[in-house]
């Protein structure tokens, strides 16, 4: 039987979420709803100091005054913020010195996800800070990192153990009142990762965090803060996957990156939240604020592979404050079925001789809508700023859409900006050519999609590139190899 593009499309439509299982772990969950009392209760449960409680309450009060943004090119039923539980922690508190003491069911979950700690530890040399629901449950490689003076821990621990660093930097890149979801996150963030690389230190391994939404009706509000002190380097990996749920789950994370003079941060994400079923029911709402600030000669590079979520709203950004600083954004966004993605980046050039590169690849299939939204802003003092942007879209099928909204604002005559965008489909000719060489249509599409995404896949650290390809594969039905 011949496998045509139509067959593939049909198969894509009937694809169910592979990781759609639910781990039954007893959870300590706060009653649903949000009020100042709940915010205080979260802080209390987490045994936070007073300044942190005050910070949260301040954020909550600001959030109450704000309205939900509507400008993105997405349609969804707005979450009912009073129907969400804002805190849940697995009841079985694992001991960090041995994985054997971790709830076996939890380990089983990791296995299904293909991210068994053992395997990760043994094979890839990746330190893991695993977040299941909201509380970190395992941390490895702490010792190696300790020797270098690198701090890599959960945000809760950081607040207790390194209050001076947290206090100094938290909210400096993404202020509490930055936007609706950032304010919400600032009020109720459950946990997340904290990372500090001391002056001149090159972090010897990829730092990695896996996130996971598990408990029904539990919003996830991670808070990540990465500080690379002068002349340091760190590569940080973030990946996530979520079990299938009928209700929409809200995910509103905030990530702040601080690259001080001559520092470099590489932040890579593979995102595979539950996208909803083929009717578009369920799925995660992913409203994320990610931003980094570059001081003199610093560099921040965002790489992301987005295959999941029902609705995605995400613009990892760089503020190029210091002279000669560099910002990069490499992204693949795949949407299928009823998924909607409005993603892109902002490159704010403030310093002289600043450079930014944007490579965005969107692949749309099914009935999905995929939008690129970007801002390149060259301020009046940013002499000799350079930007190159390329946004390519690949369409599969006739029910999906690809949209490009690049904003370019230039206030300095020495700027050089180049922006290119293309939209195309997988050509019949390309498929026939592959067929003639003995490659069937499904494999051919996989090859073409992989080729289309290559410039971005190449930017991922090796271990992650494999995972990313795996996720592309799942999103486009096992066709990518």
């Amino acid at each position: 039987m011949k496998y045509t593009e139509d067959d593939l499309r049909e198969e894509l439509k009937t694809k169910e979420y592979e990781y759609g299982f639910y781990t039954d772990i007893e959870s300590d969950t706060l009653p649903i709803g949000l009020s100042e009392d709940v915010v205080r209760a979260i802080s209390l449960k987490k045994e936070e100091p007073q300044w942190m409680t005050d910070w949260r309450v301040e954020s909550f009060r600001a959030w109450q005054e704000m309205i939900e943004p509507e400008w993105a090119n997405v349609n969804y039923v707005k979450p009912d913020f009073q129907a969400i539980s804002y805190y849940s922690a697995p009841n079985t508190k694992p001991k960090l010195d041995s994985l054997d003491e971790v709830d076996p069911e939890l380990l089983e979950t990791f296995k299904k996800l293909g991210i068994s700690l053992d395997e990760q530890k043994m094979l890839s040399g990746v330190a893991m800070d695993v977040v299941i629901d909201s509380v970190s449950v395992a941390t490895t490689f702490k010792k190696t990192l300790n020797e270098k003076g690198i701090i890599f821990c959960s945000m809760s621990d950081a607040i207790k153990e390194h209050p001076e660093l947290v206090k100094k930097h938290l909210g400096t890149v993404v202020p509490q009142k930055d936007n609706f979801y950032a304010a919400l996150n600032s009020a109720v963030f459950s946990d997340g990762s904290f990372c500090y690389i001391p002056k001149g230190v090159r972090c010897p391994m990829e730092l990695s965090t896996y996130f996971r939404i598990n408990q029904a009706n539990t919003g996830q509000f991670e808070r990540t803060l990465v500080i690379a002190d002068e002349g340091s380097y760190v590569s940080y990996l973030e990946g996530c996957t979520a079990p299938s749920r009928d209700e929409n789950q809200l995910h509103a994370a905030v990530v702040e990156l601080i690259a001080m003079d001559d520092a470099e941060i590489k932040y890579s994400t593979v995102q595979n939240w539950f996208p909803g079923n083929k009717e578009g029911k369920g799925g995660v709402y992913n409203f994320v604020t990610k931003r980094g600030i570059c001081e003199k000669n610093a560099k921040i590079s965002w790489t992301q592979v987005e295959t999941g979520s029902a609705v995605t709203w995400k613009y990892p950004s760089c503020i190029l404050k210091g002279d000669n600083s560099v910002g990069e954004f490499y992204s693949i966004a795949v949407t299928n079925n009823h998924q909607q993605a409005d993603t892109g980046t902002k490159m704010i050039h403030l310093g002289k001789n600043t450079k930014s590169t944007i490579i965005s690849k969107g692949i749309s299939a099914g009935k999905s809508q995929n939008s690129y939204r970007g801002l390149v802003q060259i301020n009046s003092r940013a002499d000799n700023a350079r930007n190159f942007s390329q946004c390519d879209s690949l369409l599969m099928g006739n029910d999906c859409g690809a949209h490009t909204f690049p904003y370019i604002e230039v206030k300095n005559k020495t700027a050089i900006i180049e922006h290119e965008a293309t939209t195309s489909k997988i050509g019949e000719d390309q498929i026939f050519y592959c067929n003639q060489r003995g490659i069937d249509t499904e494999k051919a599409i996989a090859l073409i999609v992989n080729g289309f995404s290559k410039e971005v896949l190449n930017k991922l650290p090796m271990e992650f590139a494999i995972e990313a390809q795996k996720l592309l594969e799942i999103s486009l039905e096992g066709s990518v190899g």
Partner: protein
Amino acid sequence: MELKEKLIASFMAFENLVDIDLPVHDVRSEAIKEFESQGFPSKRDEAWKYTSLNSILKHDYSVFPKLENHIDYNDIKKYFIHDIDTYKIVFIDGKYSSHLSETTHDGIDVCLMSSALSKPKYRLIIENYFNKVATKDSLSSLNTAFSQEGAYIHIPKNKLVAKPIQIVHFSTGNEAALMLQPRNLIVVDENSHVQIIERHQSLTDNPVLTNSVTEVFANKRAIVDYYKIQNDNQNASLIDSTFVNQKRESVASVHTFSFGGKLTRNNLNFYQNGERIDSTMKGITIIGNKQHVDHNTLVHHIEPNCESHQDYKGIYGDSSTGVFNGKVLVNREAQKTNAFQANNNILLSDKASINTKPQLEIFADDVKCSHGCTIGQLDDSAMFYLRSRGIPEKEAKALLMFAFSNNVMSSVKIPEIKQRITKIIANKLGVNTGFDL
């Protein structure tokens, strides 16, 4: 009184001047309500994010200039393309000037909107076309509410209109501040060709605000070439909205040359209602001082096998600001669409700025769409090369700017317009060279 309130109040006065029993008046009444509810656009509106009307809305504009003004042809000859024979529809302070005009009813209708709106012989065309493609945004609605005068052009089937048609609006400055709302309707029937040149010109430095709406209908296989020359003095502002509705196999192009004015906003919308349509929109913008030019374009690909080409070049000096907001929308049915959009800009000064937002919204899969946008400076090495060959700096600069705009000039089909534009640019750059484009 704020301008909005003043305009709404003036509508009643306007009703005393026009025949309110005509069907078109219902359209006007609807439109004033629309304007009343929307008000003037603000920077909060996405389409006006980079252009603020505040500075031009503050004047106390006269809405109905009373004076019948006369101008001598020799004083204003230079504003016409006068070295070729053309039809002319000329307005002074919004009123038709018969002695400056050359209209016709010989096989084609090149005449006035006011008579087309009132005379029975035009009723069918008005019913079928008037306000049928203009959008209901606030400024177009405002124009519709006060629509009374402007150009009316109807070219029936199979006519090749031998001479270009010039539509020229003068303002004399007899009013301290004047607001004009010309309304043009151009209907080109099957297999006919027409070329149109439009210009707005103030004769003094008194502020003028023109809110113009033009509807163009290019029916099956029609060819419409439209040229807009915007070189007004720097107290005049223009909001020019042009809506082009195309039927199958028609070819329409609009070239916009923006050199003058305080604030110029060009809304240019093309709707492709048929197969194998070709749409072209091109522009050259060269401004300085505190001038502001905003090009807001839309090409809506509705049916399959159509093409669109956009090419806008901008050169910005002093404290001027440029905006390009170009949208290509491809419907699901519009397979095999080819849509190209290019926007290239040069900033000459530290205080000049450009905001550009090229957008693609694609719902069909078998399409070829691309856009490219660049912002840069004149090429230093090219400058040096020219100067090392003995060309002085100013001339070298001009030469490079001409070269930069050449793509747009090459598709201008009336040689006299090319010459005129070349002259205006040379003048603007303060050079006197024999550049030929």
